[in-house]
């Protein structure tokens, strides 16, 4: 029970929720505003994380430069994704994006010389060399921890520092996205979501807007990948399972289409579900082992997806007029 009171534990839960909030914001732009059913969003996360780690370890690029390049690579990927897929109908688009996500993961798994293969980033520089991509990050994190220490004293652990950094980034993302989505640009995206032909008839270059939405959304995905890499200090292709995409979907569907500020709330709900099963330490759950609790968690996530579709297809915080899934 002591875990319930542990600040480090809740900092970790909060930081992971924040990372998923950034990830889901990308999907919110693509799906909630533009109506694109991207089921391969996890690929942008993988591309962000791998681009950064490879540049730092193999090309000795400074961390900040590598991170910017990673976000750029994510956006390029999003743009490239749009070229072959945008004329597809929604369900075909969804299936194709899952397939593309799996192509990216397979590539990371099998191009060992570039990505380290199934062993992940520990194998990035070959087996003879210890590889760490996050040395600069750790020193930045301890600087932040120092500042926080002056503010809140001994509560400021490393996990707490990460929590603060992640949520500052979430806030910045929201502050960037809010004016963007309220601008004429954002209104065109919503027009495309509602009726693509009508938007085209008004002279809007639909494909170009969809490309931008996919690229920017993937940029957020890549940023989430960076944060994920910094939080866990190691990753492998297994971390980019197609399941991760559906975590983001759960968050966006809880939040409701085109509800930016509800995304962090959705992410916190997801974080609670994800870590909450840890506290099932009363009967009958005491008969279950750790693996079974993980399966139970997946069951709960599946049940919530179905329940949302059955009773609140507009999301917990969404408005029916905004959008109901067709």
């Amino acid at each position, binding site marked *: 029970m002591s875990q319930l009171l542990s600040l480090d534990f809740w900092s970790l839960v909060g930081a992971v929720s924040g990372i998923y909030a950034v990830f889901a914001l990308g999907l919110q732009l693509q799906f909630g505003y533009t109506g694109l059913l991207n089921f391969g969003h996890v690929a942008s996360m993988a591309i962000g994380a791998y681009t950064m780690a490879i540049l730092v370890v193999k090309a000795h690029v400074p961390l900040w430069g590598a991170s910017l390049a990673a976000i750029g690579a994510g956006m390029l990927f999003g743009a490239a994704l749009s070229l072959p897929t945008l004329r597809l109908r929604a369900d075909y688009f969804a299936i194709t994006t*899952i397939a593309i996500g*799996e192509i990216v993961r397979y590539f990371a798994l099998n191009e060992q010389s570039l990505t380290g293969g199934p062993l992940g980033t520990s194998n990035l520089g070959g087996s003879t060399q210890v590889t760490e991509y996050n040395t600069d990050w750790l020193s930045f994190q301890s600087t932040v921890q120092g500042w926080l220490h002056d503010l809140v004293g001994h509560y400021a652990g490393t996990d707490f520092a990460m929590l603060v950094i992640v949520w500052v980034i979430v806030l910045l993302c929201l502050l960037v996205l809010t004016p963007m989505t309220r601008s004429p640009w954002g209104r065109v995206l919503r027009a495309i979501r509602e009726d693509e032909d009508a938007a085209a008839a008004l002279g809007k270059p639909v494909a170009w807007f969809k490309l931008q939405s996919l690229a920017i959304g993937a940029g957020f995905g890549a940023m989430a990948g960076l944060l994920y890499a910094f939080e866990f200090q190691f990753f492998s292709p297994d971390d980019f399972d197609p399941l991760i995409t*559906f975590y983001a979907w759960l968050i966006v569907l809880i939040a409701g289409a085109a509800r930016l500020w509800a995304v962090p709330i959705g992410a916190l709900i997801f974080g609670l579900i994800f870590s909450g099963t840890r506290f099932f330490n009363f009967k009958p759950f005491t008969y279950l082992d750790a693996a079974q609790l993980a399966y139970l968690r997946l069951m709960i996530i599946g049940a919530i997806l179905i329940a949302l579709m059955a009773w609140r297809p507009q999301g917990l915080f969404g408005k029916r007029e905004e959008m109901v899934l067709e």
Partner: protein
Amino acid sequence: MTELLQLVVNGLVTGTIYALGAAGISLVFGPLRIVNFAQGDYLTFGAFAAALVNITWGRDMVLATLFALVATAALAVAIEFVLWRPMRRRGAKTMSLFITSIGLAFILRSSILFVAGNGERSYRVDVFQSYSIGGIRISEPQLISITVALTAIAATALLLARTSFGRAIRALADSVELASVAGVDVDRMVISIWILVGMLAGLCGVLAGLVQSSFDANLGFNLLLPLFAAVIVGGVGSPYGALLGGLALGQVQELSTWSGFFGGVNPIWKPLIAFSVLVAVLLWRPQGLLGRARTL
């Protein structure tokens, strides 16, 4: 030449399994408009139902397969009653049904894992017994799989083409309203479709488990994307197309490794072939190879 023929045989093993699975997806999509993401987990369910009879209870494989067919059909019908029918009554459309099926996939897979664990299992069959015909090797499980699957494919195709049941399915796939007006009992037909789909899925899962030396609870999910690829290659909503798409995809996947084909694709990339075929077909002929343009 021997190498090429060997690859064709290997492709037939994979392709017949794809064809069975893809036909199931297509039969559900046509009349019900469900892009069933949980279909892979129906296959896993079938494979594990057979494992229960064959491994845990120690009975022979024929009995295990029949049990898997019945159990998976029962599962499919049960899910129709508790999930799909109420969702349709609520007026759920294609995209929310798609997401519902994703939730269902998670529930099914985690339930299977919950009950059966994540260990690898192998049916009690002799995987080392193999035959050699003119230098082409085929193991006994592979031979059995091809024979059973081809029979099932032929039976399914005949059922669709020649019986009133098949005609009713095709009518429903065209328009549920028109079929209903013409006197088709839609609710009863839907149950019959799920029985057929469940049996196809159960058989597909068992055969997929049989030809692999071992399998786990991801068996069906790993097959899901190639199955979708086969459905799309054949043209969505056309069960014949799905059967042919599955067979074709199996061939393409194996033949791509032929050394006469620019040295051959490294076999580790084989799973990617299905995805690439999927993307390529969508770009070149979005309605599928046999599909009609108006269905898009």
